[in-house]
């Protein structure tokens, strides 16, 4: 593993290795000294072209717990707003000696572009690209589910997968990279996934995804669900009429107090309610559901740091990194760039 770009091409063994490593990382968070010297001297750049609070802070906390140096880069207020291209930004970071780039971009495929070209010789971690993928979110969701699933089975979670677990993902699937990443990863780990959404919020080609599709949340719950994941209604991407009113949406697709009570009457006492955040309370999830003992929202945030520590550790340790590309070496070596900058400044 050199980059972490998507869960679609993540093998079962690599996925379980990340989850198992995260299990050990989680133990560090419970110690008095919550820091490991593992990535001392390595530089992790958080390259965020899109707003984010929890993902960026989570990656920053993860890198810092492993003693890496963290550079935060937000597109707002940077040279990107002056029109700098992704290539120039990447090469600038490469010249500064970045060992890993955590990238969030509004364009689907931007992390792949960064990883596939010779612009930068660093591990690339996709922290969400457009409406494509968000692999670390899916991994932390799977980690949360695996802990729950193993606790129910009374077995240790290390090495386990999610065989037989019934997961429903409800809401704005069309715009959700979280849903896509989860569908691929949960399939790899052996869970049964059902997407629940109004037809207008399902992407074209969803029938070819490795999951089933339902238009009725109550029916899906009645058939039995072990983990219920609510997706955020992405208001900022809603550029057409996808549903009549927010009230109708919350009545038909939201996890409200009635459905929370229905879990008890259906005998689903061990079903957990998940949400990747940020939540629109009262729209896709009611406050009672979000704050109920079934809710794993805060556990997901906590597990996010462990998963990101595991990803950074697995990508940055080990001598698996390829040497810098020959054609690029004259441009991207730190020495070359430094001298170029010095010349420029001295004039």
């Amino acid at each position: 593993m050199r980059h972490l770009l998507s869960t679609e091409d993540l093998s079962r063994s690599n996925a379980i290795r990340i989850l198992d490593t995260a299990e050990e990382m989680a133990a560090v968070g419970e110690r008095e000294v919550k820091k490991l010297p593992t990535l001392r001297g390595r530089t992790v750049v958080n390259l965020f072209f899109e707003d984010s609070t929890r993902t960026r802070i989570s990656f920053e906390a993860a890198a810092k717990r492993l003693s890496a140096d963290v550079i935060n880069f937000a597109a707002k207020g940077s040279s990107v707003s002056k029109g700098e291209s992704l290539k120039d930004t990447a090469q600038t970071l490469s010249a500064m000696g970045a060992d890993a780039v955590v990238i969030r971009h509004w364009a689907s495929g931007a992390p792949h572009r960064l990883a596939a070209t010779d612009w930068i010789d660093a591990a690339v971690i996709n922290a969400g690209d457009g409406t494509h993928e968000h692999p670390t979110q899916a991994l932390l969701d799977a980690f949360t589910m695996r802990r729950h699933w193993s606790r129910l089975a009374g077995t240790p979670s290390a090495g386990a997968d999610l065989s037989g677990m019934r997961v429903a993902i409800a809401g704005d699937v069309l715009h959700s990279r979280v849903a896509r990443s989860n569908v691929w990863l949960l399939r790899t780990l052996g869970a049964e996934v059902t997407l629940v959404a109004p037809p207008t919020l399902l992407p074209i080609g969803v029938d070819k995804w490795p999951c089933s599709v339902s238009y009725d949340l109550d029916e899906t719950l009645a058939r039995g669900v072990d983990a219920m994941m609510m997706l955020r209604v992405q208001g900022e991407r809603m550029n057409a009429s996808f549903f009549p009113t927010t009230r109708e949406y919350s009545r038909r697709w939201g996890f409200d107090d009635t459905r929370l009570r229905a879990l008890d009457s259906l005998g689903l006492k061990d079903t957990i309610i998940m949400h990747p955040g940020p939540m629109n309370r009262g729209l896709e999830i009611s406050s009672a559901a979000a704050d109920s003992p079934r809710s794993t929202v805060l556990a997901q945030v906590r597990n996010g740091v462990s998963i990101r520590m595991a990803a950074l550790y697995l990508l940055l340790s080990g001598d698996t990194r390829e040497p810098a590309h020959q054609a690029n070496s004259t441009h991207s070596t730190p020495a070359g760039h430094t001298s170029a900058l010095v010349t420029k400044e001295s004039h």
Partner: protein
Amino acid sequence: MVLSQADIDRALTRIAHEILESNKGSQDLVLLGIPRRGYPLAVRLAAKIAAADPTVDPAAIVGQLDVTMFRDDLSHQGMRPPYPTQLPRTGIDNKVVVLIDDVLYSGRTIRAALDAIIDLGRPRIVRLAVLIDRGHRELPIRADHVGKNLPTSSSEKVRVRLEETDTVDGVPVNEVVIEATA
């Protein structure tokens, strides 16, 4: 074969008594095995200490200390998966911690273990017990208790096989052998 099953057993019995002797008893003793093979050796030593001193509960003094994240060769070696770190319920503060590993070679694993211990607490004393000391130290580190001093060439490999970690197809093995590397 350098050590047979009976040789390993005798060496561990002697080390167990040495540990008790140098500690003047079993009070405050904590045995921390370094994965993978240090941990089963620590479990065996704890059983022998309990046999010599019936007041000792062997399960309550053994722990496992993973040093992967503290190594100085992470960027040169291949990826290493971390193992769990489990301390005895009493913790290690003000305890006499005996680190246990199978082979002492460069001393870098022990250096990492000392760093890992400092992040977990403050033992009163830290000692080191190893089954094999093969020389070639790269750091000023020595063992307090040694099963066998084994002069080796650095081109050789010392293989410790224990039934807890190296049983293949249900055939238990307990031996130490030297292999020449190609």
